[in-house]
């Protein structure tokens, strides 16, 4: 059987979804996929209840929530970690209790979980950097936009880019910034950088809505757009098309949430699931962007247009 599973839990299961912060749109969308999946599983008689908590961005509160879930003896816990290390101990406690723990997006360090599900953040950075090298022919001045400092996701993506940058010394990193994964601060920072740097050949932006902010800063200052990497934020994709940008985006699919619930239930049902489920990074480029924008209306304006998913995809991922 899968990790943590002891085989003494019977369907229908109670699933706990220990969210770190439910307010951002990405989280809302993710929660949407989880709820939808739970509805499906309820129909199949596999799940009876979904308990949702919101730690309001406080890792300490999240620990408290997971502890409560253990106390309430839920059958499965699905979690995005508020800190890559902080939850280790409480999560291993849950695992010891035979609770199926599936961790996605922001991962914990401990291996005492049923499964971890994520795209590869290092690869994220490396692929984006490679695309930038290709765009600029290996030569030029670029600015790197990072997510907040001290967070492992943003750190991993940046780390992934480094070997590529090292291998291409023609690519000069003029400067880097760290901001929240949001439009306004990114736009603000990029505007200041635009004034300070008359020559910029590319913007290597590593996630969230940073790219949208960057594009808007170029636009508002009347500067010519440069090749910009990014994520599947609807606003960025629309700007990309509108401004005729050289763009590239990957994504952290929201359906990782749905997949996590599915995985937890599969494991509880006695199926073997891999300890680490690596979800390939879907790439959006000029050839695929139209497909995404065609579905834009189904997504919130400040949301993320994620790729399609179905049970077949999940099964395939679980079979790796």
């Amino acid at each position, binding site marked *: 059987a899968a990790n943590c599973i002891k085989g003494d839990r019977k369907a229908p299961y109670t699933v706990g979804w220990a969210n770190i912060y439910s307010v951002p749109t990405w989280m809302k969308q993710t929660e949407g996929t989880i709820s939808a999946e739970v509805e499906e599983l309820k129909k199949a008689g596999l799940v009876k209840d979904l308990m949702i908590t919101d730690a309001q961005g406080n890792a*300490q509160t999240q620990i408290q929530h997971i502890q409560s879930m253990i106390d309430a003896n839920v059958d499965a816990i699905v979690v995005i970690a508020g800190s890559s290390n902080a939850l280790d101990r409480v999560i291993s406690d849950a695992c010891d209790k035979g609770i199926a723990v599936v961790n996605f997006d922001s991962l914990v360090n401990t291996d005492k979980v049923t499964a971890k599900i994520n795209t590869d953040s290092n690869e994220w950075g490396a692929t984006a950097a490679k695309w930038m090298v290709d765009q600029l022919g290996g030569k030029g001045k670029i600015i790197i936009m990072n997510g907040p*400092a001290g967070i492992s996701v943003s750190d991993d993506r940046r780390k992934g880019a480094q070997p590529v940058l090292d291998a291409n010394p023609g690519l000069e990193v003029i400067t880097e910034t760290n901001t929240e994964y949001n439009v306004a601060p990114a736009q603000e920072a990029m505007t200041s950088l635009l004034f300070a740097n008359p020559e910029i050949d590319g913007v290597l932006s590593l996630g969230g809505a940073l790219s949208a902010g960057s594009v808007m800063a170029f636009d508002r200052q009347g500067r010519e757009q440069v090749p910009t990497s990014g994520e599947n934020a609807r606003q960025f994709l629309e700007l990309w098309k509108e401004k005729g940008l050289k763009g590239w985006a990957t994504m952290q699919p929201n359906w990782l949430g749905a997949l996590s619930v599915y995985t937890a239930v599969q494991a509880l049902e006695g199926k073997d699931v891999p300890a680490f489920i690596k979800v390939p990074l879907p790439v959006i480029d000029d050839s695929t962007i139209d497909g995404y924008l065609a579905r834009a209306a189904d997504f919130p304006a400040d949301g993320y247009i994620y790729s399609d998913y179905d049970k077949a995809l999940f099964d395939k991922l679980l079979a790796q």
Partner: protein
Amino acid sequence: MSAVSSSGWLYGAIQRRRNRSLGGLYLVVAAFLILYAVLFPGILSVGGFSKFTQNWFPLALVTMAQALLMLNGGITLAIGPLVSLGAVIAATTMGTALGVPGGILAVAFVGLAIGAVTGAIVAHLRLPAIIVTLAGSFIITGVALILLPRPGGFIPDWLSITLAGHTPVAFLLLVVIVLAWKAFLATPLGLGIYAAGDNPIGAFRSGVPVEQVKIVAFALSSLLAALAGLFVAAQTGSGDPVIGTPFTLNSIAAAVLGGVGFLGGKGTMRGAICGSLLLSVMINVMFFLGFPPVAQYIAQGLIIVGAVAVPELLAKGRARR
């Protein structure tokens, strides 16, 4: 009435009187604790109690840290970063030759030193505490990020298990710290914190070294926050340079909830600790009541306002002015 003072147990009488204005809060907190025990009887077991108090412990410490300064007429916005720094220092030193004792000393020393410097700036340069500590919060965050750019570091397992295992060590520590605070308050310097907070000129004229008291208050406050960071590191088994951030606002909320005033000299530490307990137990109770996130936010707002407003409204009839 006068029986109280003729009994000779002045200290006890003063303490009892300080409880009076907190009756409403005590009731609210007790109601929540009972509700929690009904919803989750496991809290009454050693393990359940230990886990619950562990989760409350760091908030209790930072609330004490904040209340200490507010009683002295100050405030600090650097609580969160100090917690992070405490955790980072613990996680980066304990794996080195310093070992656990060295790590604990390092955390304590850095906490005291940062607090003393901040206090000296506030007291001697007469700058407003709120903005000095805001600036300080950036500096401290920066240092934490340099020491440990991403979560990690090392805390020996035995320390984690000792402090945050299935035994109520954290609770006992809290008891010890509260006793230490009581002892401190029973020193002239400790009472000076109240006096200098309420009426600095009067306290100065009475011979209280107002500036020195302020520096001590800042130093102790920072020490508590850094120790909270140490505990968080032990509880989570690692350091995280940004884990403390939410503690800043929460510490203020808990202290004010517990009746500590903004202008200094008003309120009690026991009230502040109760405020932090309410914030903490509320999270668990809402979970066991099965509140969805929306309801959690709304209930949290209502409980906080209610816990202050209801006792206040009840007392309104008695209030003179």
